[in-house]
């Protein structure tokens, strides 16, 4: 059956809301220098000042403008999300697809690695690794990617296994096509919905993980991160400052996560005909 998931989700209201949320966060990140008059590392002198025209969300315990830090925090989140999505999906496809196509010992080896990776407790390993190495953004990206590709590799492998038995791929083989042709013209295009779903899932996990690790204190001190901001804000909940320090940061993080979730949910609905509402209705009527 022919489905064009990317075309279909553009009509889905859920996807539209998700896109809107993500777009807002993205715009905040891109135009951060234009949306504020301070640098995120500036000390304005006043601490805990309430929201005003000068400081939209006031200042924090160090006297830094919270709004500016919120804007630059979006950059970190999206950067980690994007980089992890790319890196981890690339690994998933590479390992999953080659395992499915090559088969044999290589496939067994790859899949056992995947099993091993999945069974590791992610957060603890990451905290331990970050404790021994100096935490930095690239290291964080590598770590998160290293823990998110195995799941994707499983999915890609199973997809490729079923794809390579498809009739149109057999047909291509009867024209004398080699694996290179089959992979580039049949398998990769047919994998694209799966790949985009994987990327979104990885991005969502990356945002959450980055914030979570920063919240736990595992992050580069120089990097502005929503997780770290929330961690700092929590220390001052006895003051009014949490209203414009903790809540907006939490909202921004939630918006990013919910935006990605909505998009991937809508994509999944488009790809899985059983989840479609009208189909469900048809089934109820005729089934």
């Amino acid at each position, binding site marked *: 059956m022919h489905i064009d998931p990317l075309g279909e989700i553009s009509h889905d209201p859920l996807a539209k809301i998700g896109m809107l949320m993500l777009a807002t966060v993205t715009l905040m990140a891109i135009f951060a220098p234009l949306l504020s008059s301070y640098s995120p590392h500036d000390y304005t002198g006043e601490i805990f000042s309430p929201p005003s025209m000068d400081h939209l969300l006031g200042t924090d315990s160090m006297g830094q403008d919270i709004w500016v830090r919120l804007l630059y925090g979006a950059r970190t989140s999206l950067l980690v999300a994007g980089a992890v999505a790319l890196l981890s999906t690339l690994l998933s496809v590479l390992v999953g697809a080659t395992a499915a196509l090559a088969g044999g010992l290589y496939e067994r080896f790859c899949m056992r690695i995947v099993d091993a990776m999945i069974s590791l407790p992610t957060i603890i390993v990451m905290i331990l690794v970050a404790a021994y190495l100096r935490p930095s953004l690239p290291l964080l990206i590598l770590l998160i990617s290293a823990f998110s590709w195995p799941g994707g590799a499983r999915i890609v492998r199973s997809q490729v296994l079923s794809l390579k038995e498809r009739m149109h791929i057999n047909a291509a083989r*009867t024209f*004398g096509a080699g694996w290179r042709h089959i992979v580039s013209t049949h398998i990769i295009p047919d994998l694209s919905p799966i790949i985009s779903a994987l990327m979104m899932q990885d991005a969502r996990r990356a945002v959450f993980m980055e914030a979570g690790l920063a919240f736990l204190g595992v992050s580069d001190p120089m990097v502005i991160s929503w997780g770290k901001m929330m961690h700092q804000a929590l220390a001052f909940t006895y003051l009014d400052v949490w209203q414009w320090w903790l809540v907006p940061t939490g909202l921004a993080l939630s918006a990013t996560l919910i935006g990605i979730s909505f998009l991937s949910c809508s994509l999944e609905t488009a790809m899985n005909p059983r989840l479609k509402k009208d189909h469900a209705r048809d089934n109820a009527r005729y089934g």
Partner: protein
Amino acid sequence: MLSIRDLKISFGKTQILSGIDLDLEKGECLALVGESGAGKTTLGLSIMGLARGSATGEISFQKKNLLALPEDELRQLRGREMAMVFQNVEDALDPVQRIADQIAEAITVHRCISAKNAGDMALRHLLSVGLNGEKARLYPHQLSGGEKQRVLIAMALVNDPDLLILDEPTASLDALTKADIIRLFRSAILGRICIVITHDISLAAALADKMAVLYAGRIVEMGRAESLIRDPHHPYTRGLIRSYPDMTTTKDLQGIPGRLVHGLSGCPFHGRCTQRIDICSRQIPKQRELDGRIIACHRGGIVPLLEISGLSHTFQANYVLRDVFLTLYEGETLALVGESGSGKSTLSKTIMGLHEPDRGQFILEGCSVIKRDAAFYSRVQMIFQNPKESVSHRMNVLDAVQEPLLVQRESSYEARLGRAKEVLDLVELPVDDDFLKRYPHQLSGGEVQRVAIARALALGPKLLIADEPTSALDPSVQAKILKLLMNLQEKMGLAMLFVTHDIALARKVSDRMAVMHKGRIVEEGATNEVLIHPRHPYTRRLVDCALGRYGMENAEIEMMVEPEPVVLEKYC
């Protein structure tokens, strides 16, 4: 005896007969078959000395060269030593004379005999062909066609000729009259040299023991009538037999593409032949004797396209194919039938290289297939069961059809587009830009299957493996697709391995049939023979089920099949 050597007849610049060699002993009956215009009647007339064109060569009859004989002597021979029953019964009789008188005249011309005796003889002869005295007094227009035919036969036989030539003797007769006349002929030709000129193959089979196929003034194949009809070796003979129905014909009628042209250089049939090679258009093929058959073909008759020998394939220690021997000839449809799980699809996929066999050999056009390379795939292509699955849903019509060309490194887009349009045209699909840009889900099942067929044809294959090509389609679309495949076969000389479980379908499309059971081919033969006289119990059961007789249980057949040795018809 009659012996013809290198007989050539031409009318003006057109050569009608170009080198006929023929030997007939007394008691032999030869059927001359071929399309109209092949020169059959001209050959008959020239033996009688009645052909008007200029003749060279030699026709020797009773030790005289008829071509060198003066007209007077020829006239002496005609009617007495050799007689001809003409094609058109309406014109052969004099409308103003009673028939008895016409026959008496034929007697008195050649014998010194009184008019009364001649009249008595005429009546006797008319009686022997089944016309009584009353009919003898009638005029030709008062007789029916069959009766007129009888008069002509009586007239031809009245002088007891040694050579009898029958030119389309039953062309205009109904089946019952024809049967009577054939009985009459059977007794008339005894002890004579007889030549039956006809395009009616069943008549030829009924009367003649030898058969010669004439094409554009040449004999392309000659042999025993029965074996020639059952197993034609020359592609033209096969085409002729395919276009002629008899009561056991099961396959749909197919014609021969193109039309007969006289005066071609090389093999006269090369323009219409689907297995021609370079030499065919340059050199006239010599008559050769092969397996008791005289045949004039550079390729020695219909060539085997794909030979499979000793093919075995196991899947998880189970035999899926066991010692399969199969030969596919150029331009024929071989139906591979059997229940699901009998190994039909595995066999076709193994041929295509989708499965690697454990043992066995493939020979394609005389060369052993070691590696399946581009050359192999451009000769052998496959059509799959479900068109919507076999054509990628991400490819539009043009992408799908040009994919094999891309795979085979046809780099120019124009060339690919041109070829794609050509093959789409062959499968009767539109070639406008709108259609080329459509996706499979925007087409009907039949259309997608046509696209798949066009895609398979893009590389110009000689062998098409069709694995249940219509089982996913509804009956009316199925009929159209099958017609299309048959037409393509006729046009391009495609050999087809038609894999199906539907015997009724196989019956309509195939020339030969191979029955598969548990990975073995248990029976193989001409489709009509296999279906009428199935020899293997499994085939019998398949045919019974197809006929709607569900008597035998599966277990019974198992018991019957196992102890019996598997009958294999091997082709060498």
